């Protein structure tokens, strides 16, 4: 019962967060200079023509009115249409979700597959060995190179030597898996570099910290072999901060996905959101941000649960 209450409270908070994010984005977007009617018609245009557009989309109504009608529609499951294409936003987001999900999934998996083992290795290695130095170097470099710098460099490099990879040739995976991978490897790698660095660094720190814990000394003193110590004690205990950071990474990833999708012309939700923001296609940005905040909020809840599964102290606190 308590647990249910707790979950309900968390969900309430999550919904509240999403609502406030929506409101903030709504206000922020309307505060941006320039409106949809300017973008769609271009600078050389008459006021009458602009008025036709603003009226057509209800952009001439008061802001609270516009927000409320958007909110009510969304609560009824209606995300509206793109003002540019007049296509239902939900359809368009669904169509593009595949690319973004694939991109982020590839990035996360790469980041975990590369970052975790390297981080563990760097954390376990003696301070003198090159493994640790390399780990530190990769961590620092990767974490401090912005996605767009790396992306621009990659786009340039691969426009000169394609090496079988393509830039801007996105094809849905189920249409042509090979072409899809050729197009997705670069953006996913770009996106994963920061994640690799972040996860590597956190894992290394975390492992280093855990290695100084009494129970590790205890296990060593009992004559356990290093491999089983790592398996039984280090990974589990080191995973807590890594999970937190992985969630943060996921939130950052959504932002990174926007940049990488723009750079590599991956037609995902990020590119959609970004173009909509530039084009002042308000409903699209609103809905996409709602989706993003939903994903982030959900991830946070999932990590919470995962935390509790790994760390009985938290579980205990919850059940009391």
């Amino acid at each position, binding site marked *: 019962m308590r647990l249910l209450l707790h979950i309900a409270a968390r969900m309430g908070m999550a919904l509240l967060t999403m609502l406030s994010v929506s409101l903030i984005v709504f206000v922020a977007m309307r505060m941006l200079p320039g409106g949809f009617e300017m973008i769609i018609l271009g600078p050389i245009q008459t006021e009458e023509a602009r008025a036709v557009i603003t009226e057509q989309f209800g952009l001439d109504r008061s802001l609270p009115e516009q927000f409320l009608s958007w909110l009510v529609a969304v609560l009824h499951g209606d995300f509206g249409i793109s003002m540019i294409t007049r296509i239902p936003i939900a359809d368009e987001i669904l169509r593009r979700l595949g690319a973004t999900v694939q991109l982020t999934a590839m990035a996360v998996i790469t980041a975990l597959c590369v970052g975790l083992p390297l981080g563990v290795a760097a954390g376990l290695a*003696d*301070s003198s060995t090159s493994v640790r130095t390399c780990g530190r170097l990769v961590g620092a470099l990767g974490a401090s190179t912005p996605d767009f710098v790396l992306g621009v460099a990659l786009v340039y490099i691969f426009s000169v030597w394609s090496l079988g990879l393509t830039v801007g040739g996105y094809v849905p995976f189920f249409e042509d898996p090979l072409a899809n991978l050729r197009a997705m490897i670069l953006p996913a790698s770009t996106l994963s570099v920061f994640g690799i660095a972040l996860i590597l660094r956190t894992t290394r720190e975390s492992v280093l910290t855990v290695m100084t*814990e*009494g*129970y590790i*000394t*205890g*296990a*060593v*003193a*009992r*004559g*356990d*072999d290093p491999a089983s110590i790592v398996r*039984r*004690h280090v990974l*589990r*205990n080191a995973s807590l901060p890594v999970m937190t950071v992985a969630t943060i990474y996921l939130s950052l990833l959504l932002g990174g996905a926007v940049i990488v999708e723009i750079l590599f012309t991956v037609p995902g939700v990020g590119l959609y959101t970004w173009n909509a923001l530039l084009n002042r296609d308000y409903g699209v940005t609103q809905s996409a941000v709602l989706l993003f905040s939903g994903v982030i909020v959900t991830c946070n809840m999932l990590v919470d649960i995962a935390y509790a599964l*790994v*760390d*009985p*102290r938290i579980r*205990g606190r919850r059940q009391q």
Partner: protein
Amino acid sequence: MNAIVRARDLAVDYTMPGGVVRALDGASFELLPGRSLGLVGESGSGKSTLGLAIGRLLPANVRHAAGDLEVDGRSVFALDDEGIRALRRTSLGFVFQSPMAALDPTMRIGRQITLACGGQPDVGRVPELLQQVGLPKGAARAWPHELSGGMAQRAVIAMAIARRPRLLVADEPTAALDTSLRAQILDLLVALKNETGSALVLLSHELPVVARVCEIIGVMYGGRVVELGDSAGVFSRPLHPYSRALLATAHDGARPGERLAPIPGMPPVLSGPASGCSFAPRCAFADERCRSERPPLRPIGGRLAACHHADGTAPERGSGMSSGM
């Protein structure tokens, strides 16, 4: 009978960016199987280093400088990695200061004891261990954070004796505990030692406590064992001036739980072998010889002491020491 643990002139250095600290400076002692030894000394005298050295558990920045240490007849510094692990598994059990830190917070007690038994203990072994250390059967289902400090230390002890070690090393096992629990835990250790026939090395600040529970006392100073002998003897008639000082301060009413540092002057921090007696700067009897010539650990009146002036006629405890200090 062969000693279960024997140190001969063991010297160990910690190397640090700032220089070298000599933590053990020719420590020697030996202990027969089934016996209990209490090592006492001020903070920094090298007790923990010696305790860890027994299992070769010293941190990576430690250099084995000289001497030798044998456990069960095997020189720990000569063993390969698997050899030392095997030795730890078969012959040694360790209990450290902080029981909470010694338990993996993400694992139930029962599981941790099971692992300590080697992974696949006989049915009934875990409850047996729990019962041996005085924990209820239900404790197996508990998470570490659900235990009190005393119970946690019992669990740690259960893990330490899980594979019936021939030697149990306990480094200040009660320092992190409530005063009321200390005697219980020490008594448990002694009871277990008697029950299982293992030897016990107990590292502690408190001479009276050690004297009460251990058969033999070793007094450490400056990385050496400066006096070694049966408890009653050392406690009633300490030979080494440092032992006497230690005893005197203990009697001057050090309250339980208080750190001991009432002897004037500072314990030494060595960076290499001491040229003379390292207690000389603080010793009322020190002369030129004490400062220039290392006193060997020699048999005097049925025990061992490392003092040029100890002649077996040391005064009875408490007689006039304070006036000399």
